[in-house]
């Protein structure tokens, strides 16, 4: 009846498995897919990300040079990051922090004159 005894006694006497989050934060692994960020400097508002996002949470308006994202709809898949031709998108190694309010991200860039050889989606 007491087959479990050695295991739990061992647990009792050895170090605990618990990671003392939030007092002790483990170094995140490399390339963890966390919070999505767009660099407004490099983004050319091509809209590829918006087209590829499986969750359809990105909206890009080329004319007004806005890049909008619903972070609460993002599923952290990283498809957009892979697809971005400008490598403007990246993911932090940590998740977006919980919040008490709804969030909406808008990035406004400068409206650049369209280059003739710009790739077309």
């Amino acid at each position, binding site marked *: *009846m*007491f*087959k*479990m*005894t050695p295991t*739990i*006694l061992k*647990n*009792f006497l050895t170090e*605990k*498995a*618990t990671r*003392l989050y939030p007092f002790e934060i483990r170094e995140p692994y490399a390339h963890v897919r966390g919070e999505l960020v767009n660099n407004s400097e490099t983004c050319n508002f091509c809209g590829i990300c918006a087209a590829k996002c499986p969750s359809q949470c990105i909206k890009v308006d080329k004319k007004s040079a806005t890049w909008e994202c619903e972070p609460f709809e993002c599923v952290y898949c990283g498809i957009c990051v892979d697809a971005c031709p400008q490598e403007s998108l990246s993911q932090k190694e940590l998740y977006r922090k919980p919040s008490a309010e709804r969030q909406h991200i808008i990035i406004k860039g400068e409206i650049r004159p369209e280059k003739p050889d710009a790739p077309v989606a």
Partner: protein
Amino acid sequence: MSNTIIAIIIGFLVAPLVGGLISGLDRIITARLQGRIGPPVWQAFYDVIKLMSKESMVVNVWQAFCAYAYVSAAAIAVVLFFLKSDLLLILFIQAVGAVFLVVGALSSTSPYSQVGAHRELLQILAYEPLIILVIAGIYLETGSFKISAIYDWNQPLIFKLPFLFVALGYALTIKLRKSPFDLSTSHHGHQELVKGVLTDYSGPYLALIEIGHWYDVVLLLGFCSLFWATGAVGMLALLALTYFAEILIDNVTARMTWRWMLGYVWAMGFTLCSVNLIWVILG
């Protein structure tokens, strides 16, 4: 007279504090056995104070009555214990609390409460005769039901009544709602009955029941202490060992069914009691 008053104060006020502390320690040790850190020692008190401050919400006003009755009965039983009164009487008063717990659960129409209440009754059915027999054994050995006389007995009862102590251990496991007997309600809610008898209690009333449980813990440990009444060190060691054994058993067994419980506890318990009683009667 002043002794009486001190005993009453200890019974009413100190006992629940001790009970709560034991619950807290219990949770820490359980956590450590599972490789976790566990809550602070005072967690049980935090819980109860928080519950007290919550919205008062009932399914049926009778629940309130039953919760009060349960905690009062448990408290009176403990006070009588500290007054060194009659063991059998204390058991009966403690049973009042148990019955009111059942009645309170039955007063809700939720099948979880109802089934929990019936399982609680079956648990009473399993442990009560054992405790009565343990008390009878103590009486046969010491010639008295009075705790004052038992504490004055000249040698630890455990030497004469070892099997009865084991039988008391069964009762203790059931009463403390430890696996494998946490049938009617369990400390962690992962059970087919949700919280069983406690399902429909909430807020302050749940807090009362929790306090009642602390009294019960103290009372049961009091029963165990009778088995080593000749010295404080021995008594404390016995209690600590017993309680640790309970936690260990909780963590190395699966929850069983009431059919098994009735069969097993009666078969084992009555055999142990009978052997010990015959030994005492013949010896």
